[in-house]
């Protein structure tokens, strides 16, 4: 099993690249841990908020002798943030308790890179028609821009951009299927 705690000493010295490697391994598990809250919180925003907070306090995280202490800590921070947000939004406390109990405590095995998936996606991406390919590339290149700004850059209406992006995503999934890769199964 990969132990992301090997990155802790570098992260503690303020090495953002090392934190990037931690996020690459941790994000999927972190997102999964918030799955039960998806109907009541913006999971994406909480994931980002959580990672920014973890970056700030990571130098004070002390490994506890078990692998992936920083990942387990991150999941706890995310859960606490999610609970705070449900309280702030005045979600029924019993619902919050139920959602909190449903979070994945033991989902601490980091994500491992899949070189085969990368290679097949690259092949499928090459086959995309122009407009969907443009929409996909623009979203990938500029996550700091809202869809309306990206659409404007591409000379598309926002809805047209979103339709092209949806088309790119579906065509990629279909193509991956032809290579025997079931995205839903990959994500399970």
């Amino acid at each position, binding site marked *: 099993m990969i132990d992301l705690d090997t990155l802790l000493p570098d992260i503690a010295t303020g090495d*953002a690249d090392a934190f990037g490697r931690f*996020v*690459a391994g941790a994000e999927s598990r972190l997102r999964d841990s918030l*799955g039960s809250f998806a109907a009541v919180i913006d999971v994406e925003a909480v994931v*980002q908020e959580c990672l920014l907070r973890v970056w700030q306090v990571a130098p004070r995280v002390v490994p506890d002798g078990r692998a992936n202490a920083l990942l387990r800590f991150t999941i706890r921070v995310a859960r606490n943030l999610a609970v705070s947000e449900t309280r702030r939004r005045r979600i029924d406390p019993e619902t919050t308790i139920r959602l909190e109990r449903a979070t994945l405590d033991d989902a601490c095995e980091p994500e491992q890179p899949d070189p085969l998936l990368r290679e097949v*996606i690259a092949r499928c991406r090459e086959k995309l028609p122009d407009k969907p390919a443009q929409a996909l590339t623009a979203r990938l290149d500029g*996550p700091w821009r809202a869809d309306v700004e990206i659409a404007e850059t591409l000379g598309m209406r*926002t809805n047209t951009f979103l339709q092209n992006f949806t088309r790119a*995503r579906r065509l990629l999934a279909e193509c991956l299927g032809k290579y025997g890769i079931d995205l839903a199964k990959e994500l399970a």
Partner: protein
Amino acid sequence: MTDDEKAALIEQAASAHRGVATDGSIRWAPAWWDLDEDGRVAAAALAKELRKLEAAMDPDGLSTTARLVLSRIRGG
């Protein structure tokens, strides 16, 4: 809300793009607020799929979420 309108909101809410409030906190997606509970769950599921694809396409294995967070850490 029509199915097309809902689908567009889900697609927008599934993007990693989020604004930053004046206190530095991450703003929730405007599209997220316009969705019902089913739509919000669908947006989270789609975001999960997209982040996985993005990470697989990135040479460093970073999703757009990861790149955004790193850009904020580096003062971007």
